[in-house]
């Protein structure tokens, strides 16, 4: 049984290292900025230890409920601050602290020599603290606070090299687009605010997450406090927030641009934590979503569409990090789709495995960048010989992403596919069918772009790296790449390889060991993780729910493996034989390629149509017309009237404050006299 | 006739007062004896402070003599102990001048207004158990409030003298006083949090561990702030002889000058007494409880010695350095101290909200670390931030830019 203090300190330790790095090291001891790295790593290591203790405690079934602090009392509504500890939280804690720790260690090598080293670690600590606070929140207001804090710190991290215009623009874009999603979340919270009285009648607190769950349950003792259309809209509001953070269609455009941040940042926030926050949010309010078929349908379809849509754009990208970014969006689509189909445990399971192998892929990209100085795959190639360890690790992670048996991704993805095929009963059958086929298509695309990426990067001949790229781009901005310029074709330093190796081990084993399919292995019971999560969900609702674990199906494994292999084979045929720097084979189908590499013109749509035409021209133009003609006309009229009146009354205005004060006092006296006389 | 103070009377707590009241009550009606006893207490207090001031003036002159490798006053009386008396006689026999153009009434009030707060402050200080003239439940605030009267007196002196140097001195003095008031008040909040009360009696009894150990930072801030408020070297810009002759009391002579001097020396003693009460455990000490007086006086002596020591050792600061010291150094320190104390109390207190001796020792340990770190950090900072030279802040504060 862990104490409350231990759980709080999981959150407070990174916060403390943030304070230390930001307020002590950076202003006073910037020469020893490496200290902030060590302090952050120490704090996170301890936090990871505590997280594992907490997870163990939750596994052992300890009853971890803590009395929340009273934070604010606004009228009848009491807003509290507290800890919500269930299997989902415990698992997320380990994932967040674990990946964060490894990324921070990696950053020691990657960020070495950066003038803003302390600032980097301060932001990273702040981000990790915010994410942990988000995971631990028991109150929706508290959760929202950390949600926004995650947004802010990701803004800071994406724009870390703020002297680059592209980074600043990407940070702004990420911030604004996630904010659009947050409006939905905020509206959901405001709706709860209006319902505070109704909740209070039933003895519930409208902001406490467990109380919100209870309120949505039709068979709960209090009866469904929120239900029907209101429930659907509440769920959709939350989902819009989640979609913003998790980059679901149509709010996905910020995520690929966010790759302007340092690569470890991408590994941390765009693979394992921040983008997973959206999935986490939907999972956190899963008991609400469950009660609304419409909301579930929307979640499933948006997720399924995002999975294919993003994967298709990943096919043609030349920037290695962008490929991974679209891959991330696509995988998040899988998770969302799974949640929409009611596959709560498989979705979180996929989140965990994805965190491991996607973080590894990003770190691998960073490592490659460290060697070649560029992110453009057209200038890489042949790195297999120079960086064997990175190659092996990226290959493992890539195959895990594709879903090759027995790597991690296979097991979690298969659960989702199997669940989608079986259907769950919450959504209509056609929805689960559509989802299933989209996801299968996604598997093919995933396999294709992953193998394409690996081949372009590691096979063939080396194509010149950053120097060649700068040569090719006549207008290249040397300052932009100066921070990581230069080519050093050799393996990355040990501090960078070690975290990658750890993640590699996780990417191999975590899928099967966390969820043994047939028998208990090494003391881990069969279907452990899905059972664990499903039990947690059921328990939190007082054993309401219907989440049985899925039995492994060989036929489904065969189908998904066949799909993956077809993608791999296609990529291998197209790219493995290619010599030199010739055109990409996909460019032969010109219109499709153009459309994909222009990202379906989504950015153009947003920028030119919605913002320029829609917002500036139509909306602002209308307002402008109203302003000029109606408002100004009225104002002119009023002004004309009072100008003429004013010449009369103006005589009374002396400009001396005391005259006016006399008037005020005279009024007061009149009121007092009136009251006296009235009595 | 037998007079007894009611339990709700504000003076009921004071042993000395009750004794006088009951003794006089045997002879006179109770109402009269109430007033008589009060007057008697006032007499004791006022004379005690003024006599102490006289004595301290001799002590300090001797001490500073020794610090300067001189002998100091040594002619009249044993070791020159009667020197204050000689000074007094000399000042009393001098002509009492009032400059032409002065505001006579205000000019005459000033010496009284200077001495009054010094004596008033002593009214709430407990010399021993239950001996404060009034055990106010807002004692600490009272002391701060009374201190602020001094600044008015300084202003009155500066303005009524009709002398530009006096005005410079007064403006500087008041600027210093209001600047240092802020960190001093903030530093006392830590003590209030620990004691859970503003009554000086409660503060003394709360000091199972003397608060200068528990609150080293507050003690330092209070010591520095008080030295500045007392207008003593190194903070004596208000009466810096070499710059503005004698500051706000330039035009005073004779008995008025004597009173102002008495107020300045008395203020050191009163400030020491307050500090002893707040930080050094007041009258508490080992051995018999009736030794409280002795402990109290001993501690006052130690602190007064520290004040003299500081005066003899440090050179005078410039006015801009002085104000920077208050706002950029002492104020952050006192805020840090306040936060640290509040957090520590929050975490260490038990369910009933009280702290035991172990908690205080723990806090002492933590706070010494905090104090050391803060002094180090802010010391480094202020060294970089305070510019070595440059014009003084404005015409009002410096004769150099007077028009």
């Amino acid at each position, binding site marked *: 049984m862990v104490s409350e203090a231990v759980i709080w300190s999981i959150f407070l330790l990174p916060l403390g290292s943030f304070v230390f790095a930001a307020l002590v090291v950076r202003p006073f001891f910037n020469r020893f900025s490496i200290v902030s790295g060590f302090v952050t790593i120490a704090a996170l290591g301890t936090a990871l230890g505590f997280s594992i203790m907490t997870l163990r405690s939750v596994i052992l079934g300890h009853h971890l409920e803590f009395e929340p602090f009273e934070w604010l009392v606004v009228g009848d509504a009491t807003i509290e601050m507290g800890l919500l500890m269930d299997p989902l939280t415990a698992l997320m804690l380990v994932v967040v602290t674990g990946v964060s720790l490894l990324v921070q260690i990696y950053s020691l090598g990657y960020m070495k020599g950066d003038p803003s080293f302390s600032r980097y670690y301060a932001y990273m600590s702040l981000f990790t603290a915010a994410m942990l606070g988000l995971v631990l929140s028991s109150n929706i207001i508290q959760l929202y606070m950390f949600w926004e804090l995650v947004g802010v710190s990701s803004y800071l991290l994406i724009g870390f090299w703020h002297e680059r215009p592209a980074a600043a623009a990407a940070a702004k874009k990420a911030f604004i687009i996630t904010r659009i999603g947050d409006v939905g979340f905020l509206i959901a919270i405001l709706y709860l605010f209006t319902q505070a009285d109704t909740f209070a009648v039933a003895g519930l607190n409208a902001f406490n997450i467990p109380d919100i769950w209870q309120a949505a349950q039709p068979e709960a003792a209090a009866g469904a406090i929120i239900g029907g259309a209101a429930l659907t809209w509440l769920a959709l509001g939350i989902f819009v927030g989640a979609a913003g953070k998790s980059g679901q269609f149509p709010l996905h455009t910020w995520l690929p641009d966010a790759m302007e941040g340092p690569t470890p940042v991408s590994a941390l926030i765009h693979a394992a934590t921040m983008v997973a926050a959206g999935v986490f949010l939907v999972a956190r309010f899963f008991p609400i979503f469950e009660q609304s078929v419409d909301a579930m349908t929307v979640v499933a379809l948006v997720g399924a569409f995002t999975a294919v849509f993003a994967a298709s754009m990943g096919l043609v990208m030349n920037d290695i990090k962008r490929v991974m970014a679209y891959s991330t969006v696509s995988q998040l689509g899988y998770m969302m789709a799974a949640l929409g189909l009611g596959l709560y445990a498989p979705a979180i399971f996929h989140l965990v495995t994805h965190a491991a192998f996607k973080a590894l892929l990003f770190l691998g990209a960073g490592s490659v960048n460290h060697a070649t100085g560029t992110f453009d795959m057209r200038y890489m190639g042949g790195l297999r010989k120079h960086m064997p360890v990175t190659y092996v690790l990226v290959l493992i992670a890539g195959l895990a992403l594709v879903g090759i048996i027995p790597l991690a991704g296979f097991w979690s993805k298969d659960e989702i596919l199997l669940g989608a095929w079986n259907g769950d009963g919450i959504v209509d059958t056609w929805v689960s069918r559509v989802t299933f086929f989209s996801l299968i298509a996604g598997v093919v695309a995933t396999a294709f772009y992953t193998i394409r990426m690996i081949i372009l990067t590691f096979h063939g001949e080396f194509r010149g790296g950053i120097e060649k790229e700068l040569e090719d781009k006549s207008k290249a901005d040397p300052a932009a790449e100066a921070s990581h310029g230069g080519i050093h074709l050799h393996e990355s330093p040990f501090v960078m390889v070690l975290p990658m190796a750890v993640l590699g081990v996780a990417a191999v084993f975590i899928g099967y060991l966390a969820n043994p399919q047939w028998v208990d292995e090494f003391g881990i019971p069969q279907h452990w993780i899905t059972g664990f999560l499903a039990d947690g969900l059921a328990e939190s609702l007082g054993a309401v729910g219907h989440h049985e674990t899925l039995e492994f199906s060989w036929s489904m494994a065969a189908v998904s493996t066949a799909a993956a292999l077809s993608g791999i084979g296609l990529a291998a045929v197209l790219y493995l034989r290619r010599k030199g720097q010739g055109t990409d084979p996909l460019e032969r189908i010109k219109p499709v390629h153009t459309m994909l590499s222009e990202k379906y013109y989504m950015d153009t749509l947003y920028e030119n149509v919605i913002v320029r035409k829609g917002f500036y021209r139509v909306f602002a133009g209308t307002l402008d017309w109203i302003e000029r003609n109606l408002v100004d006309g009225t104002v002119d009229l009023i002004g004309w009237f009072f100008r003429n009146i004013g010449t009369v009354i103006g005589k009374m*205005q*002396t*400009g*001396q*404050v*005391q005259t006016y*004060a*006399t008037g005020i*006092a005279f009024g007061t006296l009149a009121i007092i006299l009136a009251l006296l006389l009235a009595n | 006739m037998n007079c007894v103070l009611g339990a709700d009377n504000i003076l009921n707590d004071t042993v000395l007062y009750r004794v006088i009241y009951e003794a006089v009550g045997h002879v006179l009606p109770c109402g009269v004896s109430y007033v008589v006893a009060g007057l008697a207490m006032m007499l004791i207090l006022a004379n005690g402070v003024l006599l102490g001031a006289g004595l301290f003036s001799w002590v300090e002159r001797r001490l500073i003599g020794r610090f300067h490798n001189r002998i100091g006053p040594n002619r009249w009386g044993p070791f020159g102990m009667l020197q204050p008396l000689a000074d007094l006689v000399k000042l009393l026999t001098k002509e009492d001048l009032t400059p032409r153009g002065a505001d006579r009434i205000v000019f005459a009030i000033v010496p009284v207004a200077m001495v009054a707060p010094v004596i008033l402050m002593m009214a709430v200080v407990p010399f021993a158990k239950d001996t404060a003239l009034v055990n106010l439940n807002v004692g600490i605030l009272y002391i701060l409030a009374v201190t602020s009267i001094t600044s008015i007196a300084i202003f009155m002196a500066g303005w009524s003298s009709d002398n530009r140097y006096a005005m410079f001195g007064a403006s500087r003095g008041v600027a210093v006083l209001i600047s240092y008031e802020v960190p001093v008040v903030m530093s006392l909040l830590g003590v209030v949090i620990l004691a859970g009360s503003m009554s000086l009696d409660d503060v003394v009894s709360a000091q199972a561990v003397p608060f200068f150990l528990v609150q080293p930072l507050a003690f330092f801030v209070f010591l520095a702030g008080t030295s500045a408020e007392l207008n003593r070297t190194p903070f004596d810009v208000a009466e810096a002889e070499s710059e503005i002759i004698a500051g706000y009391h330039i035009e005073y002579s004779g008995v008025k000058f004597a009173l102002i001097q008495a107020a300045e020396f008395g203020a050191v003693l009163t400030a020491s007494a307050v500090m002893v009460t707040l930080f050094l455990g007041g009258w508490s000490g080992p051995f018999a409880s009736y030794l409280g007086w002795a402990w109290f006086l001993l501690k006052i002596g130690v602190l007064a010695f520290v004040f003299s020591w500081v005066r003899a050792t440090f050179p005078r600061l410039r006015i801009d350095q002085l104000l920077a010291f208050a706002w950029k150094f002492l104020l952050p320190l006192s805020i840090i101290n306040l936060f640290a104390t509040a957090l520590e109390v929050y975490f260490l207190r038990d369910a009933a909200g009280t702290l035991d001796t172990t908690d205080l020792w723990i806090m002492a340990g933590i706070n010494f670390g905090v104090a050391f770190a803060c002094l180090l950090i802010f010391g480094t900072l202020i060294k970089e931030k305070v510019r070595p030279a440059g014009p003084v802040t404005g015409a009002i504060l410096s004769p150099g830019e007077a028009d």
Partner: protein
Amino acid sequence: MSFEAFLIVAAIMFCIGLYGALARRNVLAVLMSIELMFNGVNITLVAMAKYLAPAGLQNDISTVLTGQVFAVFIITVAAAEIALGLGIVFAMYRTNETVDLSEATQLRH
């Protein structure tokens, strides 16, 4: 020393302050007069706290302090007022070279 006596003293102070605020030329004199008015109000509030039965007395005895709480607020507001007021006086002195309210009539135009 009855309740009414306090009220009357407070009323006198308030009215003197009002007279000063209306009839003095110097901004600082006006500010001082306003302080007098504040003090009159404060006396009233504290006297009411001492003598009168507040509305919620039966439920919560601490409501007898309500008057004092308001006096605290007034003192705080007075501090804020004087800080801003003096800031305005300095700004005015800087632009007009005078603190005479009779000459501060720019608002008229």
